[in-house]
């Protein structure tokens, strides 16, 4: 269907810092014991999109991601991995691979997206309206927008969450205003011309930009070429396109339908006008159309382009892994309520315990839990709503609640872990109590220490 897909894998995000490292870039962060990128790739595969470009920031990260993809998706997908320098931003990443893009439309998917919204629907909406950009919006997570929640969530009360403010036209098909979290102050500025054209704008704060866009390639490339200062798709390119949609500066290539027959050119002039009028009148008058035709039937057609939205239904799951809070949430959801995303089959107790895992006597693993292969648990342990990775050794009388434990973690006896993330190769000695902590890879927590809401990582 003439779509190219670009997956923005990211590099090593600062927001996720104790969890990620050069060896473990964002894209490979395990969610329910699978790298988060695999959710995107499988999501695309499900939509029959098998030709992908994955862009990763940083050479080393790119090598890691590339080797993982080539191992996991050898015959299933045709993936090209491109490495771009760090801190070029999403717009810079697209700019860097711009010369590889040839198809009519481009899908840009963030590599940290975990969703089951039908991708085809976004593309279909894009095509149906012949839009310049189509944005997928999903309902914002209840815990507040991810940007506001810094590590741990201890400062939840400190400031109210910053929301994306999204203005929609009355039919909820077109995007007329977008202000992302950082820009929003107390007041909201909307162009008068926009208000005049649309008539009625619906401002929503309960929607989140899922960072899944369909762009018209020609427009995207032109914008990126012209505006070299643009750094991010979400913060620069998208607001620019939305802002300028009424007086489009981007040259939309293809004045509709050049007549190929020279002899009929004379007729076609007036006919074309009539034709477009018939077609225009046939459709429900959406505001871009009304505006494009000008008031009171002036014949001069204005230069406009359309920015559309696809709003995912509330029953669909759609989250981005862009904060530590989100990481915990996604892990919990993938094992819990959005379990169809995980791709595992659940046992009768509604949990996943690998057959090679060993459980001690009187150890209970509750529902919505996952226990990776080769992990051992001692006696009288209890695991609730947590993910435990591969080859972990957990001593006796350990409690793990609402936590993520990655691979090769050693946990001593009588530890209690609650709401925490423990990275690979961490060693927790006896009687450690962790609450809402993040423990970086390879860290050793000494015996008997009690932490609450701390970040423990190697300096």
């Amino acid at each position, binding site marked *: 269907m003439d779509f190219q897909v670009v997956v923005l894998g990211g590099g090593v995000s600062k927001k996720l810092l104790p969890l990620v490292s050069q060896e473990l870039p964002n894209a490979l962060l395990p969610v329910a014991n699978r790298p988060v990128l695999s959710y995107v790739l499988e999501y695309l595969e499900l939509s029959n999109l098998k030709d992908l470009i994955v862009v990763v920031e940083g050479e080393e990260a790119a090598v890691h991601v590339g080797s993982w993809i080539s191992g996991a998706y050898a015959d299933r997908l045709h993936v090209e991995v491109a490495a771009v320098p760090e801190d070029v931003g999403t717009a810079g990443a697209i700019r860097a691979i711009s010369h590889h893009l040839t198809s009519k439309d481009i899908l840009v998917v963030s590599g940290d997206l975990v969703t089951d919204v039908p991708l085809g*629907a976004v593309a279909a909406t894009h095509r149906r309206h012949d839009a310049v950009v189509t944005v997928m919006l999903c309902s914002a997570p209840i815990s507040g927008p991810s940007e506001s929640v810094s590590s741990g969530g201890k400062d939840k009360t400190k400031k109210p969450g910053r929301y994306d403010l999204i203005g929609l036209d009355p039919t909820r098909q077109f995007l007329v205003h977008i202000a992302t979290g950082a820009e929003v102050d107390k007041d909201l500025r909307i162009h008068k011309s926009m208000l005049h054209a649309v008539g009625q704008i619906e401002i929503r704060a309960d929607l989140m930009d899922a960072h899944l866009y369909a762009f018209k390639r020609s427009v995207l490339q032109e914008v990126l070429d012209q505006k070299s200062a643009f750094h991010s798709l979400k913060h620069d390119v998208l607001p620019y396109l939305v802002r300028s949609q009424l007086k489009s500066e981007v040259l939309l290539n293809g004045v509709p339908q050049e007549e190929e027959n020279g002899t*009929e050119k004379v007729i076609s002039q007036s006919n074309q006008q009539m034709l477009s009028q*018939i077609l225009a009148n*046939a459709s*429900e008058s959406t505001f871009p159309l009304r505006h494009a035709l000008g008031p009171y039937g002036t014949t001069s057609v204005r230069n406009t382009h359309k920015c559309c939205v696809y709003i995912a239904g509330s029953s669909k799951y759609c989250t981005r892994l862009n904060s530590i809070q989100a990481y915990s949430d996604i892990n919990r959801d993938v094992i819990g309520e959005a379990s169809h995303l995980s791709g595992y089959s659940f046992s009768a107790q509604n949990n996943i315990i690998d057959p090679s895992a060993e459980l001690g006597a009187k150890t209970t693993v509750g529902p919505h839990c996952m226990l990776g292969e080769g992990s051992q648990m001692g006696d009288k342990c209890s695991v609730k709503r947590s993910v435990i990775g591969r080859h972990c050794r957990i001593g006796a009388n350990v409690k793990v609640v609402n936590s993520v434990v990655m691979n090769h973690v050693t946990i001593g006896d009588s530890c209690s872990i609650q709401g925490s993330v423990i990275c690979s190769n961490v060693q927790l000695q006896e009687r450690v109590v962790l609450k809402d902590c993040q423990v970086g890879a390879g860290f050793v927590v000494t015996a008997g220490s009690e932490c609450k809401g701390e970040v423990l990582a190697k300096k």
Partner: protein
Amino acid sequence: MDPSRRAPRAAIDPVPKFRQVGFFAPPERSQSGPPDPTHSSPPISSSLSPVMIPPPRHLSDNLLLHARPTVSPLRPDSSTAAATAGTSFDAADFFPALPSPAPSSSYSSRISGEGGFFNGGARGSGAKVAASSFPRGGFDLTAMKASVVPASELTTVSVVNDSLGIPEKEKGNKGGGSSVEVKDQSNSSKQQKPKTSKAERRALQEAQRAAKAAAKAEGNKASGTAASVNAKSAKAVKPAQKVDNAAVAASEKKGAEIPPEKDRKKDAPQPRMQYDDKSRVEKAKRRAVVKQTEARNRVELFRHLPQYEHGSQLPDLEARFFHLSPVHPAVYKVGLQYLTGDISGANARCIAMLQAFQEAIKDYKVPLEKTLVRDLTAKVSSYVSFLIECRPLSISMGNAIRFLKSRIAKLPLTLSESEAKASLQSDIVRFISEKIILANKVIVKHAVTKIRDGDVLLTYGSSSAVEMILLHAHELGRQFRVVVVDSRPKHRGQLLLRRLVEKGLSCTYTHINAVSYIMHEVTRVFLGASSVLSNGTVYSRVGTACVAMVAHAFRVPVIVCCEAYKFHERVQLDSICSNELGSPDKRACNCKRIWERTALPYTGVTIPRITKPPKMTIKMPKELTRSASLE
């Protein structure tokens, strides 16, 4: 006074009969639906329409008929003359650069805007002349209703308030064609199971009786033999039954020749898909591209129509966006737009479809070891079936597809691939510009002459042709007022209203349930049509007939504007046997259908009358020449 009183009643009388046809025999109807417009059209007269016509009608028709044959010889002649004149003029006017005016003239001179407006009182100056040429002058009303309007090459179907001339005319047609149709009936009855059931039952009974007798005779022998005997005897009875049937058919046909069985089967049009036939629906489902869930609350009367829940189609189609590789993106887009209602209106849908096909042809490449003609035809067919799944085709689209396919089939083999593609593309462009745009222009030009200062024009829904007429008349400086009548659930009229008001026309907006209150101030009714069938029936959005009937009751002339490419040879006597169902969620009442036929007495479309003079027939488009057999 009396005759004028009687006249409308006489006209109204046949209507319940019409209606009864629809409601009386739904099983037969459902099995013998009219042909699918997209398929290659069936051959002429013998299979004109499988629609049943109750025999009593013919008798009465024939009785009524006698006055008809002497249709004023004056009128057709003059109309033809005008038409030809207009044609050449038009060709020059609109197609200065066209190499040969022949093709354009052939289409643009279709229908003369005959009939004029009869409004009870004699309005025209030529009333008396026409009256004298009318043999049925006994009725005052007809006498008054002179056609003042000179015929022109228009595609407008001027519609007359007169309820006498045309229905009788149509009846005449029926009377003439009755043998054909009765034959058809018997023909179809042969193929249908329930129809033959009488004979079959008898056969079965006989077989059973024979079997019983045999069983009795042979006492306690194995029942297997009995069964075989049963089968045998059934077989034996079969030919007899056939003969029986044929005899019946012959007697019905009153001596009409019977073509051999095979031929008749071939002649019969392919029955339209009947959605109450379970096995077929299953089969069609397996082929379908778009998954459709069926509506749960079906209406018994409309069971044979495709009924799907509108909500489920779109998400499914969207979700499988990337799986539908055989469908060209442009076609896909149009299909999606049909499904979501982004494009509606016969003209717009047709244009959008043709443009999508044009694009698809542009991108088309002949695969190895295949010929362009065959492969492209198959491709177009697959696109069409995709579009049908999105929304049933309108008749205009069917005609356009037929045109395109015939152009593909007629491509000379010597053409190279690129030449063939270019020629097809220019064919499509020409179709759009000639059959749609130019036709609209001609309609507008003609219809504007019907608008006088001080008129109050009523229109229903939103028709592109009517809109253009109104705007053009406004540009010409005519002083008139517009009443826009609208209906739920789509409220298309609101869009029209908005555009008209923007242009500065003075408008009144009302809903259809108030149409009788507003009608007394109206002087003309302009309606659009989805199609005009060969018996003159106007096929249009539901509610159109109501408006036409009210207008008729108030003696307001009704003018239907329809381009000739929307004509179809089908004859449809009700709007049940073939229709499109709207979304059950949106409808407020139990009227589920989207389309409606407007019974002839209320519209009085003049096509059959125009088909009459042979000169005119030549200039008819293909679809209409086929319908010439009506006479």
